[in-house]
């Protein structure tokens, strides 16, 4: 049965599983999306992969901050720790036994990211280029520094879309940026965005 009444306000938050999506000309890629696409073990991997393929087919330009590379390294190190110590992995941060696996995963992730980028027109930004915008984003919208760097990259590049699996970006006003995220985070992103604009 079709839903009754007005459809919910999108607040410029879109699910990347939505087949009726109009794809942007350019989009900022957050590390959370890169991890989801590159690692088949991630829960939203299939949807993220399909969205990446759609972006490539639509000739969308990817814009990203090189902070992503470093965050990817951290993710990989944590993955190696989690593989070795599934329950209490945080405690084993300095356990040398995970390092060899981390090194192998890190090389794999870096190559995969480079290969992934080769399918797109892309623009890399450095942290230094956007650093001046970061404090304002932190104090105005309550961003953590990592998130603020990616948001600042979008503003610096003049790109009005971001693809992320991190709900924090919903704190940016909808007049500045559209968010593409997985279906399970759409409702929360819209809720945070409504609260931020209230």
């Amino acid at each position, binding site marked *: 049965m079709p839903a009754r009444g007005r459809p919910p306000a999108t607040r410029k938050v879109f699910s990347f599983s939505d087949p009726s999506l109009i794809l942007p*000309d*350019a989009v900022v890629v957050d*590390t*959370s999306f890169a*991890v989801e*696409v*590159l*690692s*088949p*073990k*991630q*829960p939203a*991997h299939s949807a993220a*992969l399909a969205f*990446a*393929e759609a972006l*490539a*087919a639509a000739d969308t*330009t990817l*814009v990203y901050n090189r902070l992503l590379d470093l*965050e990817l390294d*951290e*993710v*990989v190190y*944590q*993955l190696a720790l*989690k*593989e070795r110590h*599934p329950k209490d992995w945080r405690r084993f941060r300095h356990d040398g036994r995970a390092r060899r696996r981390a090194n192998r*995963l890190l090389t*794999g*992730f870096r*190559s*995969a*990211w480079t*290969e*992934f*980028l*080769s*399918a*797109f*027109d*892309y*623009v*890399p930004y450095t942290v230094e280029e956007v650093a001046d915008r970061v404090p304002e984003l932190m104090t105005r919208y309550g961003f*953590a520094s*990592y*998130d603020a760097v990616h948001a600042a990259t979008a503003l610096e*590049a*003049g*790109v009005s879309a971001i693809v992320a*699996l*991190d*709900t*924090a970006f919903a704190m940016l006003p909808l007049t500045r940026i559209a968010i593409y995220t997985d279906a399970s985070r759409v409702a929360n992103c819209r809720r945070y965005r409504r609260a931020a604009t209230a």
Partner: protein
Amino acid sequence: MTGATKKRIVPAKVKDAASRQATIRKATRRIRPKAKIDIARSVRGQHR
């Protein structure tokens, strides 16, 4: 996208849609981690 950003575009190495799809799929087959991760919680320390 600003004009300055457009000037900095690194062009794709693969141009046609089918090859792009194949490249993306190949990239995602490179790695087989056995664990999964929530980056917002683990790496960025958010708890919501």
